């Protein structure tokens, strides 16, 4: 069984703050991390490998330094990796990203299974996986919380829905995106970490993938960001200080008068 995991290096959003005076992002101390959901994708792929044998390949599209993200997941036991890096890929929206990744999957493949994270924390779109599958014309299932069975030919999974879960069966090759319930991410081993240091990470540009430059990057992206701004503070905010009892009654009275709560407080 050959599995591909798509991972993305993202800025650690917990450290990004808005400067209230200038309304701009403060980048100070922002590190790059492997998108947390993609570690679950690696875990899912590695668990299948433990069970069925085969190989796990990691792929990312990003700037040259995204190589460190690939090495990090090799520490978990991923066998090899490919970096899709080219100035032509800059400014990709999900459509152009999925185009490039689909080309990459063809180049590095063929694969029986492609695993993506549920979403990337910098964009939170959850689009790249499904778009990639549609481009490769293979079945896909999003938000997989459990792999029920897989024999290398056919796979059955539990897909998280808002009102419960569905059990879905499909033939390989296919793509799944996974949620954190898929299983706890293993700890990198010393042996794998050493191997990861030495393993070559080939870099592929648009030409190597046979990708049309006009379909990549900003050029190939149907969507465009026209404005970026700080979320506007809520209007009509009030901050009250005083005796606890007083505060409690005052807020309940207000909520009751505004019919936000049903209790009659007077």
């Amino acid at each position, binding site marked *: 069984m050959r599995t591909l995991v798509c991972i993305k290096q993202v800025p650690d*959003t*917990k450290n*990004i*703050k808005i*400067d209230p005076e200038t309304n*701009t*992002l*403060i*980048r100070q101390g922002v590190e790059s991390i492997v998108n947390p959901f993609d570690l679950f994708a690696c875990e899912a792929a590695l668990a299948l490998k433990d069970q069925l044998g085969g190989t796990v390949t990691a792929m990312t599209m990003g*700037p040259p330094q995204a190589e460190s993200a690939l090495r990090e997941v090799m520490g978990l036991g991923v066998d090899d990796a490919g970096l899709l890096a080219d*100035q032509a890929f*800059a400014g*990709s929206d*999900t*459509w152009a990203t999925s185009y490039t990744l689909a080309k990459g999957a063809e180049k590095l493949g063929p694969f029986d299974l492609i695993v993506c994270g549920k979403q990337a*924390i*910098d964009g*939170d*779109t*959850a689009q*790249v996986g*499904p*778009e990639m599958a*549609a481009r490769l014309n293979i079945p896909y299932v*999003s*938000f997989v919380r459990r792999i029920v069975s897989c024999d290398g030919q056919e796979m059955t999974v539990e*897909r998280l*829905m808002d*009102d*419960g*879960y*569905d059990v*879905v*069966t*499909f033939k390989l090759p*296919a793509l799944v995106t996974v949620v954190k319930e898929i299983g706890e991410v293993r700890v990198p081993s010393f042996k794998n970490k050493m191997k990861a240091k030495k393993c070559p990470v080939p870099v592929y540009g648009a030409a190597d993938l046979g990708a049309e430059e006009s379909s990549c*990057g*900003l*050029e190939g992206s149907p969507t*465009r*960001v*026209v404005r*970026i*701004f700080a*979320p506007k*503070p*809520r209007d*009509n*905010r*009030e*901050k*009250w*200080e005083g005796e*606890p009892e007083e*505060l*409690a009654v005052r*807020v*309940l009275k207000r*909520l009751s008068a505004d019919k936000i709560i049903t*209790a009659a407080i007077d």
Partner: protein
Amino acid sequence: MNLTIDPEICTGCGSCEDTCPYEAIEVVDGLAVTNESCTLCGACVEVCPVEAITLPPKTAESQPDTGDYKGVWVFCEQRRGQLHSVGLELLGKGRELADQLGNELVAVIFGHNLDGMTPDLVRHGADKVLSVSDPALEHFTDDVYGQVLSSLIKEKKPEIVLCGATALGRSFFPGVAAMVGTGLTADCTELAIDPKNNQLLQTRPAFGGNIMATIVCPHHRPQMATVRPKVMRKPKPREDRGEIVDLRLPQGVEALSRVVDSIEETSQSALLAEAEIIVTAGRGIQDPKNLDLIRDLAELLGGAVGATRGVVDSGWIPYAHQVGQTGRTVSPKLYVAIGVSGAVQHVVGMQSSQVIVAVNNDPEASIFDVATYGLVGDLFEVVPAMIQRLKSAQGLG
């Protein structure tokens, strides 16, 4: 392609350097320069005080005439014969957009035996309902839903297609966008028509809610967007005056996957998403036994219990209660945050609540930036007083 930084205009002030989320721009010898990490995200363009930075222009494309595409579609999800309310909410927004464009509003629904649900779509504003009822659509699969919707879009050419950002919508809609060959903006919190060129302005949070971005899809049609439940308001029902069109399953649809079982499970987190009132515990409660205070208050208010990740990670309450970026997004009528600091990852999950009450003893806590009513005080005094007052109001003592 690179950013263009006009050396004549750039003052080397460094605003761009401070803003760039990718460390891709820095000031060297008094002039901003980019490196290969640049993803052309545009964050620096906005902050440059002298407008020295521009994104590369997009070369004109040989796109189909966008003028052929007309009408606003809303995909209305149903599960087990129940309409999801987000479809009705989107019909309200869709009505506004369609009226502004002077075009029709179309509701699209898939499933098997839909007649009981279609009139409701008309009552909520649809001029027309496209209803595809077939045993093959009884259970949701990405491939069949995706193929049917993309084939309808290719045939009828709508200008805008909206869908709820539910598990189902977030899963199959991106596949549709890829099959149709157009852009898609996920989880929009605002949709509007640009009066200058009739383009759909799609606003959504990015970078974990730290910034908002407005996105357009200038040269491709349809313009596709998803919106989370409870972000838009459900319109008041009105007199029927729409038309219901029954369509057959398009030719050539091929099932690639099969649902062998569908288990309904009203999870705690689903209850949370539906709750009208939520009382959330933050690490300020200090000890798991103090969750009783939160539970009592929630019960008296008729609400559900939420928690911050701080509380969940401490093992005080299961993950299903977590609100925020990695938990549930909620939008109740009333959100009461108790001992919650207001970290951005928490706030993105609750900021669209109608009224927010916060209790925190730190007057500088950032939760007060979003609280409608911020109570500066010790939760161990304020919350028992609230409980006491509610009990006496309900004749409980």
